[in-house]
């Protein structure tokens, strides 16, 4: 039987600061952010590391999105600390 889902995706959670930023987004921006988060959740190595820290800086120029995040120690949760859309 073929698997119902693709590769296991990490859960994504937002810090309070990032949640406040989300509240300012339009529908279109939220849809674009959703696409970026799906991409991140399937490949948390996307983006570039901020040197000497666990933080990573992901930028998607097509959707004008920037996400600052880190992956939890057990690599099960992607914590979004900051976002920009548009």
């Amino acid at each position, binding site marked *: 039987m073929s698997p119902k889902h693709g590769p296991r995706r990490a859960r994504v*959670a*937002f810090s309070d600061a990032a949640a406040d*930023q*989300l509240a300012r987004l339009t529908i279109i921006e939220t849809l674009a952010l959703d696409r970026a988060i799906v991409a991140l959740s399937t490949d948390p190595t996307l983006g570039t590391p901020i040197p000497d820290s666990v933080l990573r800086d992901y930028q998607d120029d097509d959707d004008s999105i920037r996400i*600052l995040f880190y992956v939890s120690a057990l690599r099960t*949760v992607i*914590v*979004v*600390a*900051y976002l920009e859309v548009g």
Partner: protein
Amino acid sequence: MNLHTVPNQHPSPPAALRAVARRRPGPGRSAQGVAPGVPAPLPWEDPSAMQESVMSEAAPQQPAPGRDPLSPEAAAAVRSYAGRERARTDELAAVLEDIAANGLPRPEDCTPWEELRDAHYRRLGVLDRDADVA
């Protein structure tokens, strides 16, 4: 080019011009009523006029040597873009400074994306109450 031969950009006005300028309204006085054809106060006679030309964002600027000047509208648009970029960078820097000072936000204290997203869509009126996206 020998720099010593470059003429001064703001030469001292000839004596006749100074005499004309002295008859015109000074700083803080209305220029209305001045006969048509009389030019505006000269910068060297009117310090407030010179200050305005430096301080006002809408005033056309003297292009710097080797630069092409922008229209007032284009200059305002560029300033507006600069302001947005500055605000964006300030917000990012504030988050980074907060992490540097206080540490990383704990996953257990964060809110799952799906929960936030669906609540946001409901606020925007694109998702029925009690429904979720996926």
